């Protein structure tokens, strides 16, 4: 006897139909492998371009090849936070359960990408600037972003009622998204005023066309991977939250 939430039942927008977890579940299941495949293909292509086509950088030598993983991870870390805040906002505004689940599903992937961005940033910094960590504006913002992800996940983990968890997470994500630009600009000021040891990432040499291509291909690979991972995770979340419902019981019954 499951029915969609009142908003979802009103056929105002056609795609509200997919706002019900029950209809979205098979859709996510069908889409995820495609995105995963796209991610794998693009990743192989991007790495090939990155390692075999793109030339050695005149200034940095081979270590610049880290950007093919670093820049996509850094981009995705921010993009995923935006997507998370977007779904959270939709969830608050329209009271659709699926939106909150999407936000929850995106957070760990975003945190992993943030971690990768920080890790690769450190490994790039060592041969390039001679230190593992530079208090550069972007790296520092990235670190604070990682803390924001941790806060979001810890808050949701501490709340037992999934409905409250979704809404509380949504408020936090929206507050965070307002704060990210403020954090970034304040860190940048702080950084420019504490010159001295710091090296600005902005003075990166102009990139060769093949380098840019390789990086963009890797960005799309990361994008496709993030979508696939989020879809898989949202399927898990749907199963966990709706495991008492008839359709999940039926689904698991036939799957067994």
């Amino acid at each position, binding site marked *: 006897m499951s029915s969609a939430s009142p908003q979802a039942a009103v056929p105002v927008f056609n795609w509200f139909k997919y706002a019900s977890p029950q209809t979205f579940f098979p859709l996510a299941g069908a889409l995820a492998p495609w995105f995963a495949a796209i991610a794998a293909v693009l990743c192989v292509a991007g790495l090939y371009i990155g*390692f*075999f086509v*793109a*030339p*050695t950088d005149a200034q940095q*030598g*081979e*270590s610049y*090849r*880290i950007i093919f*993983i*670093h820049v996509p*991870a850094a981009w995705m870390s921010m993009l995923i936070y935006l997507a998370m805040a977007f779904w959270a906002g939709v969830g608050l505004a329209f009271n659709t359960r699926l939106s909150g689940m999407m936000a929850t599903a995106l957070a*760990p*992937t975003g945190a*992993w990408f943030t*971690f*990768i961005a920080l*890790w*690769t940033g450190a*490994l*790039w910094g*060592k*041969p390039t600037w001679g230190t593992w960590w530079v208090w550069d504006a972007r790296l520092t913002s990235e670190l604070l972003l990682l803390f924001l992800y941790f806060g979001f996940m810890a808050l949701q983990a501490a709340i037992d009622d999934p409905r409250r968890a979704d809404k509380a997470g949504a408020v936090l994500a929206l507050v965070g998204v307002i704060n990210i630009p403020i954090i970034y600009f304040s860190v940048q000021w702080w950084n420019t005023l504490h010159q001295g040891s710091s090296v600005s990432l902005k003075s990166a040499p102009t990139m060769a066309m093949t380098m840019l291509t390789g990086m963009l291909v890797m960005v799309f690979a990361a994008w496709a*991977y993030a979508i696939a*991972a989020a879809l*898989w*995770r949202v*399927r*898990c979340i749907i*199963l*966990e939250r709706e*495991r008492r419902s008839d359709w999940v*019981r039926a689904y*698991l019954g036939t*799957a*067994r």
Partner: protein
Amino acid sequence: MNWGSVSEFLAMGGKGLYVWGSYGVAFAVIALEIGLLVMRRHAAGKDQ
């Protein structure tokens, strides 16, 4: 082609540790995430 031999490729002009350290950890993290997802899906399916 940038590389004359496999060992040259692995050495990355002396920066192999950093380059492969980056890619290794990145892909390990992604593999870990996929592994966690598979385990979670498995647990969710069994939870009846």
